[in-house]
């Protein structure tokens, strides 16, 4: 089975390192990083990606805007998007679901939650 290629998007270098280390901990090792939505679009053109994990609040282009762009793109609409964010109010969650995210994790998160959400997203649940 091919290794999952994951794009991790967050404007905080610390947070990206935490997510990457946590992904390694739960068994994934092929990660690409981007610092915001605009950077993610550049990386997507260069690297095939199977799963996107993105923050919400980012400069240049936030996670919701990026999700909207990807879901309207023929090349990228099928890539599942998992949002990891500090936003937990209902209105934000509804906005994210409507934008097209496949999974939603609130910070701070545990490795178990991350693994569970990735499994669910990949299973199409």
């Amino acid at each position, binding site marked *: 089975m091919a290794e999952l290629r994951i794009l991790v998007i967050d404007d905080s270098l610390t*947070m990206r390192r935490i997510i990457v280390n946590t992904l390694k901990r739960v068994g994934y090792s092929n990660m690409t990083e981007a610092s915001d939505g605009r950077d993610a679009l550049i990386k997507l053109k260069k690297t095939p990606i199977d799963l996107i994990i993105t923050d919400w609040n980012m400069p240049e282009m936030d996670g919701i805007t990026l999700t909207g762009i990807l879901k309207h793109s023929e090349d990228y609409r099928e890539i599942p998007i998992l949002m990891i964010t500090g936003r937990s109010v209902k209105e934000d969650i509804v906005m994210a679901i409507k934008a097209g995210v496949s999974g939603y994790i609130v910070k701070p998160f545990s*490795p178990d939650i991350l693994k569970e959400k990735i499994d669910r997203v990949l299973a199409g649940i």
Partner: protein
Amino acid sequence: MSLKKDKSEKKSSMKIGPTEPAMPTRPLNAIKSALQDMEVPIRESRRVLPTASRQLGIISTKTEVAANQMLEKIEQIIDHQDKIGRLSGELAGLAGKSQTPNVNDLIEMAERLTDMALTSKNDAFLIIDALQFQDTTSQQMEHASELLNFVEQRINHLQSIIFDSGMSHNNEPVNQVPDTETERRLLESNDQREVDDIISGIIDRQH
């Protein structure tokens, strides 16, 4: 005769009765308007300052909790490294003492070393988890900073009202009142189960 007429003319021009003080209406109106203008920035600042203070308090608490969590794990890692070092020494000693060391003893020691190494690795991961506080507290600090900038603008505006000789309102603050939604979001703690329940509810309604 003309003198009498003059006197009577003078009398009529000097009316004697209740006198009204001359009212400086224009400056008083300006003062009143300025005082009314001051009420809004004072009220907005009073609303915002406790929030900024709360945010900073939460940041301080979260930082301390995270630091202690990390320290605890670091101490455990150090303890495990000491034990690993001692066991390694015993292992080397066992191997050195005899041409045919007891295999079971060697296996047991190797297993203990492996367990300790794994435990140390897990402790290191827990430190990484604890470092997530940095992301949430940085957002809270940005929000607290925004609130304090807001208060500073209001104070500058008050200053211009009080000390501006023309009582003009030229220095209207440009930043808007920070929204309570951001404040609510940053003060509430996040629970993944509640989020999952909300998402389940959304999906159920869609079907």
